[in-house]
């Protein structure tokens, strides 16, 4: 486990450098962390497998036409491997999983991976875009609020932020939709691209005005919510850091307030925000289900909801495992990132 640097026991301040087995230790740490990730994913996959299998409702019910003969139904069951005993299904599932094979969607009659890839880029764009907005605004806002502590500005700022963080996303989405799309007609009211447009490449799509226009409202709605965390986190970290004596000393050194604010307070306060962002990306990839619904965004979240409500558990499972994998990885990234950014962090078995 990583722990922040408050550890007074690690006072490595000798003059001689003997980092001989440092590397061994380090890679050992990373390996064990990786192993732990795999374990986590395995457990999640297992839980999922059983949840979905035990779920009431025959997964094929929606697809088996009543006019099908028993024989035809059996063929279908066999095709999806549902005729085998549970434990065997489980083993096959695990074996497939290891090979990155998530099975076939019942609903789309296509490999789950394929179905997911179809929507994943959209979710990624939505997520990244909203994160960029949210973290830019959030971090700057947090800095500003901290700097203006005990003023009206701060009070209003905090209240406003708490509003954005408390408002149900679909509600905000609806309001945004009505105002900017229905009434002002500035932005399209749904979907990810203009009607009938074909993009030559993802890049062209990403840089096309029409795509950005479609991206804007959902990102904005997501960002309105997401922004609260970095903002509040930044603010309270800033307050912490501003109480630290190195900030005070910086002031004694006659540095300008702006420099102190950015290079000292903000730089240091941003560390946890950066990790929060990494973790947040993990969360968000699970799909901003609600926003994707409101804005008809063709993304992973909506796919997952549809899959769950259609008992398409191969697909639901796949989408879920993918989000879980991203979360686990982002958690790992956050850890690594933190220790990369903060020289005080040590790792390994403490005592």
């Amino acid at each position, binding site marked *: 486990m990583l722990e922040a640097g408050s550890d007074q026991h690690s006072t490595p301040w000798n003059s001689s450098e003997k980092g001989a087995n440092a590397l061994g230790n380090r890679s050992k740490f990373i390996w064990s962390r990786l192993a732990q990730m795999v374990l986590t994913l395995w457990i999640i996959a297992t839980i999922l497998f059983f949840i979905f299998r035990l779920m009431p409702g025959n997964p094929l019910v929606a697809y088996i036409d009543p006019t*099908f003969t028993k024989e035809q139904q059996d*063929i279908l069951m066999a095709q999806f491997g549902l005729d085998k005993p549970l434990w065997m299904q489980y083993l096959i599932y695990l074996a497939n999983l290891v090979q990155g094979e998530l099975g076939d969607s019942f*609903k*789309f009659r296509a490999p789950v991976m394929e179905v997911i890839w179809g929507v994943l880029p959209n979710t990624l764009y939505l997520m990244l875009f909203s994160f960029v907005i949210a973290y830019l605004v959030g971090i700057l806002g947090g800095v500003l609020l901290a700097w203006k502590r005990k003023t009206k500005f701060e009070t209003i700022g905090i209240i406003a932020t708490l509003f954005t963080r408390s408002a149900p996303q679909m509600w905000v989405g609806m309001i945004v939709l009505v105002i900017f799309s*229905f009434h002002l007609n500035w932005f399209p009211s749904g979907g990810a691209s203009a*009607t009938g447009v074909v993009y030559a490449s993802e890049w062209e799509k990403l840089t096309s005005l029409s795509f950005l226009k479609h991206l804007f409202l959902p990102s904005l709605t997501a960002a309105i919510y997401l922004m609260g965390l970095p903002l509040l986190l930044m603010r309270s970290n800033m307050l912490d850091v501003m109480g630290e004596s190195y900030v005070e000393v910086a002031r004694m050194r006659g540095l300008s307030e702006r420099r102190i604010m950015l290079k000292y307070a903000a730089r240091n306060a941003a560390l946890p925000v950066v990790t929060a962002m990494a973790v947040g990306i993990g969360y968000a990839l699970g799909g901003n289900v609600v926003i994707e*619904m409101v804005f008809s965004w063709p993304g992973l979240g909506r796919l997952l909801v549809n899959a769950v409500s259609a008992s398409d558990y191969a697909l639901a499972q796949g989408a879920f495992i993918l989000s879980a994998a991203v979360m686990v990885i982002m958690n790992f990234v956050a850890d690594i990132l933190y220790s990369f950014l903060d020289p005080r962090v040590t790792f390994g078995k403490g005592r």
Partner: protein
Amino acid sequence: TSETQTQPKSTDTPKTEPADAKSREIRTLQILSRPQASAPDEYERANLIAGAMKELGINAEIKAMPYEQQSDIVWYKRDEWDMTGWQMAARPERLDPDEFVYNLFHSSTAKDGYNFIGYNNPEYDKIAEQQRITVDREERKNLIFKAQELIASDVAYLFNVHPKLKYVYNHQVFDENSIVEMAGMGIRNIWTYLNAAPTGQQKNMILNSNDSVQALNPFYISGAFDSWVTELIWDRLMRIDKDGLPKPWAAESVTWKTDTQIEIKLRANMKWHDGKPVTSEDVKFSYEAPLTGEVPMYKPFVEIIDKIDIKDPLTLEFTLKRPWAAFETASLSKLNLVPKHIWGPIIEDLKNKPENAESYQEKTPIGSGPFKYENWKFKEEVVLSANTEHFSPPKIEKWIMREIPNTEASLGMIENGEINFLAVFPGDGQLLQQKVEASPNLTMVTTTDLGFQFFAMNHRRPPFNDVAFRRALAAAVDRDMMAQVVYKGFAEPGDSVISPALSIWKNPSLPYPTGGVEEAKKILQEAGYEWDAAGKLLYPAGKKEELGK
């Protein structure tokens, strides 16, 4: 001054209570429904029915569950449920009454077929069988009328409504006279797509769907929206015309040589989208492929075929195992014609694999239909372009279907022009009407649906095994109220499996019970039902509730 509509009138209940009241009690009946969030109308109708039952002194409890769970119970646990909300969707082939009349009620489908309610009436069975093989239109009509009568008087279903389909299009974009309305289906049909004439710059028809296209596969239709697309890409030998009757399409002529022999002549010069000619070989292949087992979905529609003989490159002869009145509608108008040069090798290949043709997705689907596949952005849109070489070329340039799950958004989009054809609108019709009236561009067309909404009662279980009970319930449920309240007037009260939209088949005077709660109570009393002191309905004397487990 308001009153709850579900309040029992305590004054009506007799004061005296039968001695054996305890043993004659009716259990709390469960009504399955999809959740309000996904099927608000079904849920609200369940509420109304539960209210009516309460007035009769019957306790009912609504259990909301997703469709998949609901159908799992209804289909596979046939004697474990009491009542369930259900619907029959409109599909072109259902323009022929056969499927509704035979499949839904024939006792042979009670075990694992569509007769999940367990309706069993030998007299009815005979009629249902008879109409199948009666090719004479008038004679068959009489049979269908009779069948409807039986269903109505037996109260096989608790009919609710035939909803009205609501469509809106932009008359600035399309000439109003070029929009074609089809009985029981409305203006959203292939004839409109073929006929719609753009009047200005906008040459594309952009319509909405509210769920995903799942596959574009001539051998597999899962979602409703898949079929909207496939019927445009792939031609069929016949198509259901706007009057609801099949007419030759890819076939120049369809001639019934006998009750079991049909001669098909193909149109000349038809081409697949890849330029290859359409031949009898392709047709034969299209009808035989399902028999290989690689196309399970279409197998039921070709099993009746004994053999197919190719007379010449444009002529074939189908021989049926026995007469089937619905063959034109349910088979000739249903199966997609697929190019053998593409699918032949695929089917061969699939024979050695666990998968079947249903999971095969062509990169660029090739058919011979009036529209060509152009692009499909998953969960976003499907784009088709006009096949100008088709024998019936569309007037529009492109047909684009946008996936918009958000009803509000779809409404906003038809208003602001992002779409010009509102092809599906599950929302409030009244509101839609207001919006259309307020807009200078929009025209709204409503049509009574071919499909219908109802609550199924499980005839296997008491008290539904008693006709009198079912009749009483039917009388107590106010279908007009449903149409007005739940559908805001955009529905017609139903009393039959045949939609009023199909004037040829619909029996206009059916003995379906009416008269409200008063009448219902009378029916029950006559059948020996009684009420206890608290107003709870009791079985007739001597009858006890027994549930076969």
